[in-house]
């Protein structure tokens, strides 16, 4: 996020929000404070390994009763209200992030590192990926992304995006709640407030790099209960992850191959996610390789 004054002091103060995708760096230029505060929800500036990104500037300009969204001098959209500005830019940036890897499947999973080890937390919506990822961050893990990874036969890379934390999760994240509560936010149609959290706000780093996965943990919520973990046969892991993967129309076979390769390389576990303290111990055991006999459970079709 950057504030800047126009050249010569003629232009009013403008505010920029920076959003990274893997290949591009978008500068979102807000015309006034209210738009700036709204689009800060999209702020995303991780350190991403690889070549320098292409620069793209998108300006939000005030009209009489609406906002114009302008890219490369072309008026690409007109919307009414700051909320509509956020929603449109959110969609545009999501599409741009996908276009960066047009033939690579997108897996619904949080991506973290512990030292040199990489861990994926997969699971359906509301499984608790982000909340648990933040709990892991508190224990020294580094979050690369909390929502998606691109997956191909060489490994994965997180799709850049800040952690999206629902206000309803703050009571669970007691020690971090105050800091998270200061993050930019957006309130959805159902009146749920969602914060956009940069892991650096919480004293961590935020670096995204491509690499192989060591452990995949499929989360199943057990809210209010205990946590337990069990090894998952690789065929069962592929089966479960198939429900969480977005296959690209032109490269479906390649995406299956990527999943199969992931199953070959990574250990997989099924985590019944209840209390976070015991879940944390379960993950530590999984990463330390104390996983018992992985071949003990017969796969099934």
């Amino acid at each position, binding site marked *: 996020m950057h504030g800047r004054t126009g050249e010569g002091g003629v232009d009013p103060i403008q505010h920029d929000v920076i959003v990274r995708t893997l290949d591009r760096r978008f500068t979102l230029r807000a015309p006034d404070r209210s738009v700036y505060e709204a689009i800060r929800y999209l702020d995303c500036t991780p350190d991403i390994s690889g070549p320098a990104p292409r620069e793209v500037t998108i300006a939000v300009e005030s009209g009489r009763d609406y906002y114009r969204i302008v890219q490369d001098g072309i008026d690409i959209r007109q919307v009414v209200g700051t909320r509509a500005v956020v929603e449109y830019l959110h969609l545009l940036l999501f599409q741009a992030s996908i276009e960066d890897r047009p033939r690579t499947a997108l897996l619904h999973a949080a991506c973290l590192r512990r030292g040199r080890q990489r861990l994926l937390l997969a699971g359906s919506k509301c499984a608790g990926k982000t909340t648990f990822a933040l709990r892991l961050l508190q224990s020294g893990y580094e979050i690369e992304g909390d929502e998606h990874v691109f997956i191909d036969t060489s490994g994965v890379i997180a799709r850049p995006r800040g952690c999206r934390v629902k206000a309803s999760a703050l009571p669970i994240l007691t020690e971090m709640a105050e800091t998270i509560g200061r993050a930019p936010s957006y309130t959805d149609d159902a009146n749920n407030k969602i914060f956009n959290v940069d892991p650096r706000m919480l004293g961590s780093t935020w670096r995204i790099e491509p690499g192989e996965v060591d452990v995949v943990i499929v989360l199943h919520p057990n809210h209010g209960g205990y946590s337990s973990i069990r090894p998952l*046969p*690789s*065929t*069962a892991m*592929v*089966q479960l992850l*198939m429900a969480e993967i977005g296959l690209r129309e032109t490269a*479906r*076979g390649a995406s*299956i*191959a990527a*999943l*199969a*390769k992931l*199953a*070959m390389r990574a250990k997989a576990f099924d985590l019944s996610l209840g209390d976070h303290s015991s879940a944390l111990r379960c993950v530590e055991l999984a990463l330390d390789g104390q996983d018992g006999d*992985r*071949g003990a459970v*017969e*796969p*099934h*079709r």
Partner: protein
Amino acid sequence: MSEILKRAPDLEVHEVPDGYVVYQNKRDNVCYLNKTAAIIFEFCDGNLESDEIIARVAKVFDLGSSVHEEIRACMDALVKEGLIQSSTT
């Protein structure tokens, strides 16, 4: 008449530690084969008759004739899923 079994065309077979993940391009479908099913699938190379495959699989696992029906059921499932094709000679 004897029944010959062979792999269906247009399959992408990916080996994983506990079996195969098979993608059927035409049907845009994924099948998961455990180790036993993967071995049966491998024997279906178009050269062996079904009875011969059953005998060989039983021998691989050092099992008696009591499992022949189960092996036959697995082959039938592979045919039903379109992973192998059956022809009579």
